[in-house]
């Protein structure tokens, strides 16, 4: 019935990890974004550690899975298990707390080491409503972000400033990256499969056929 329809736009499932020191507002940011809620008192929905959001950018549909991570030092070694296979990372610091900014730098180093350039990084200075108590200058942060190929945003989860943009920009970059990876894959194995319209190619694989090596 829908045989003549154009193949539906690809749906991207993106995994985004949230990293940053405790109390910088990671949970608040996501709750603001996903549920448009802000709790002064840190109490909210049952599930605050894992949230999803669907959005459409152009003709692309994106499903974001946003993973909160345990921030304690003792769990630091588990980082790689959490951010394995993620498409994006949001590294948050509190603009009133320089320490939290230094922590962001550590995370960036680690992510780069483990995942290279496959992962899209966004650095966020949160709590801009506390401008008067600012301890991390915008220039420093922006310069640093640029030097590591990350985008930098300033937000206030409390006043809902700049939150939407963070996720929109990150999604756009993840789509670009996915397209790039797709193109690379296709270039590597141009004849690996036929997707010619209408034709159903049924290939019998013999037991002796060498196993194709996929990317891991």
């Amino acid at each position, binding site marked *: 019935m829908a045989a003549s329809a154009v193949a*539906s736009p690809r749906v991207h499932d993106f995994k985004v990890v949230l990293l940053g020191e405790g109390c910088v507002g990671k949970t608040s940011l996501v709750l603001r974004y996903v549920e448009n809620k802000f709790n002064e*008192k840190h109490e909210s929905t049952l599930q605050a550690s894992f949230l999803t959001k669907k959005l459409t950018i152009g003709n692309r549909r994106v499903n974001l899975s946003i993973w909160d991570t345990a921030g304690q030092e003792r769990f630091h070694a588990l980082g790689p298990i959490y951010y394995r296979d993620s498409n994006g990372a949001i590294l948050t610091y509190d603009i009133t707390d320089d320490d939290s900014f230094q922590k962001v730098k550590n995370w960036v180093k680690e992510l780069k080491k483990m995942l290279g350039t496959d992962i899209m990084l966004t650095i966020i200075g949160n709590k801009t409503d506390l401008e008067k108590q600012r301890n991390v200058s915008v220039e420093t942060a922006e310069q640093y972000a640029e030097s590591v190929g990350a985008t930098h945003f300033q937000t206030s989860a409390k006043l809902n400033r700049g939150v939407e943009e963070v996720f929109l920009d990150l999604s756009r970059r993840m789509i670009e990256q996915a397209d790039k990876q797709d193109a690379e894959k296709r270039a590597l194995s141009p004849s690996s499969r036929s997707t010619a319209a209408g034709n159903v190619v049924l290939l019998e694989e013999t037991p002796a056929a060498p196993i194709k*090596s996929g990317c891991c």
Partner: protein
Amino acid sequence: MIMAFLSSQPKRSMFQLNESDLMCKNACGFYGNPEWRGLCSQCFREYQKKAEASRSRHPLRGKETLTEQTTKHQTPPSVGSSTLSQTVSTVKTALSPFDKFVSKKKQQSERKTHTVKSIFAGAAPKDAEPEHARPTRQVSADVQHVVREFNEYLQTLPKPIASDIAKRIQTVANKLLDYSAVDYSIDELTKIAGNFYEEFSDRLTRNELFAGLDEASTTKIMDYAESYILIRSYKNLFCPPTTDDEDKDLQTQKQIRKLNWVTAQRLGATVDEMNPDVREHIDLAITDIIEIDTKKTVDAKLKCVVSCCRNIAQMLQLSGNGPPSADQFLPAVIYVVLKANPPRMQSNIKFITRFANPNRLRTGEAGYFFTNLCCALSFIESMDAKSLEMTEDEFQLYMSGEISSSSLHEQQAFMCDGLRQMNKNLQILNELKQRQARLDEKIKAEQELMEDFFASCMRKIQEGREKYPLIVKPRRQLPVFTFGPANNASKENIQDSLNPSWADS
């Protein structure tokens, strides 16, 4: 192309994942593979040997009786004979594969009854005769369940789609089964599954044939495909002898036993263990995590993980930490794993990481929870003094059992069912007492209200009475009319009586 394929393998239903079709043509009870003449690996080897003995070359081309069995062995006779439309039209009459899971005896006694009745009666024909006596193995209930569900779902799809999907899935399922049976390395098996998921999902999203499918259907198909290809080889893929999974399981189990003194508090989770409701969720979480091992599909295993983690989240919520942030969540998962000491945890985690559709581990709630479980296990494996923020000496003393946690006794006492029941009852009693007190208070208040009301009523009545006193005056005498000569006095009297005034005012 489809037609070409169908005619190359005549008389086989393409879109039905019929278990009887999948069985070894020797009816030895193992699964067969079309690439091995529909035989299982063992029978195929024997067949090859025989064939080689009789003729020195081309074992695959050998015209043995087995070939005939293969053709005898088909399901609906018209399927695939010439065109796709024919194939489609026979779908409805094709036997439900589940119903073919009848005992072999039954299959042999009742033959060739392709009626609708026979579908529901559960009798299905199977012509293959056992050639050799090998202990027959029934297809397990788990496989039956997966196959039935998948088939039911396939029936709801347009036929070309269903047939394409079934064909592909069957191919890879057979491949996995055969390769795993001959001890292929686990990495190679993982690659077979991984490549399949990648190519298949690519196909589902990009190929014109599937353009009408929405995202939910695609996900569903992927999940069914995963269950199907894995369940048939589960015995070979789960904790295979080519790996050290079993050793690791034992190691982990031992480590967890040694760590029985670690409390939630030490891990950094706030768990109010004295609260019976919290306790209940801990128990549920423990049950869930233990259940993982009993499930045979990734989907079912992950459902246990999700249920376990939801209970953990609930338990944290009830312990009064507000929203279970990741900072609280992970320690709580570690705590539950330590409490449960689930069987074959490493094997289960390895099975899922190796063979699950990678996409579902990357996204979705199940992926998140599963990752937390992996983290918990990894943390436990390498748990040391530093990770618990204690000195090396102290840690060693605990590990050797020389010191035991002070709160351990408390915890274990609390674990005792009787005590727990008592505790619960006490709490219920307490609650009842409070409710009784509240009720008493309300009764008292109600009483006071009534009294007030009564008093105010009385007061009002009193006021009304005072304002409008009821004075009853003696009745006047009726005027008397007299007839006759009137004197002055009587004239007055008459006038009076003509203007009667009964009332006082």
